[in-house]
């Protein structure tokens, strides 16, 4: 026997079964970003003032390309989740909120795609 109330059953709105997904992905991307960001800062500092040829040589390394792709992907996901919470916390007008949530997704996908394509192009020496 179900313990749900008749009203709840009629509405058909139970658990969406995704309760902790947002929380969990925020942590997964955060953990992934710890070593990736440390590596990025170290690489940037180490290559400061390097000319175009050295920069290309850096980007051409498979390991650098892979780490940069992971970094841009995890960052885009992480910041999409973070900005979503900020919007949900402060914007209470339904229309404005939905618009901003969509723009947030568009922006993060654009960052991931633009960054990702540039890194792939550099990896293949284009």
């Amino acid at each position, binding site marked *: 026997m179900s313990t749900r109330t008749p009203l709840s059953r009629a509405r058909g709105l139970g658990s969406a079964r995704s309760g902790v997904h947002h929380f969990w992905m925020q942590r997964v991307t955060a953990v992934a970003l*710890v070593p990736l960001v440390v590596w990025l800062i*170290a690489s940037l500092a180490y290559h400061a003032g390097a000319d175009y040829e050295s920069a290309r040589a850096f980007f051409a390394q498979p390991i650098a390309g892979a780490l940069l792709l992971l970094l841009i992907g995890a960052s885009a996901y992480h910041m999409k989740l973070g900005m979503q919470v900020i919007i949900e916390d402060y914007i209470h007008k339904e229309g404005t909120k939905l618009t901003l949530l969509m723009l947030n997704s568009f922006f993060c996908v654009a960052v991931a795609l633009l960054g990702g394509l540039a890194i792939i192009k550099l990896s293949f020496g284009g």
Partner: protein
Amino acid sequence: MADAKLGGSGGVERPLSPHLQVYRWTIPMALSILHRATGAALYAGTLLLVWWVAAAAAGPDAYANAQLVVGSIYGRFVLFCFSLALVFHLLNGIRHLVWDTGRGFAVPTAKASGWLVLILTLVLTLAAWFVGYAAMEFHR
């Protein structure tokens, strides 16, 4: 609720629950909002990262242009703020991950870890810039 707003009892100003301005600022509270603020700043800052890789992918001219802008005094200032925000968000993020394991919640501990994050943010950011300037001399 609408009644209370309209002053249902003859325009009487009803008391509101205490809000941010009545509390004395504490380190955990300041770092909490700073974590969100730096997160929002880094959100925009990813454009810098995308610009950097896109300029490298676009060719020597675009890359030289990006180097010129970032190398200018304003560019360096923006980059310094970006690095400061990034290092802070990284370190305070690790603090949050430790909290997720259920550790470090005692008030003195949370205060101490907050100060540690602040000090390490300054030290590590300055260290990264020190290495950066040394590398620039080396690449010259």
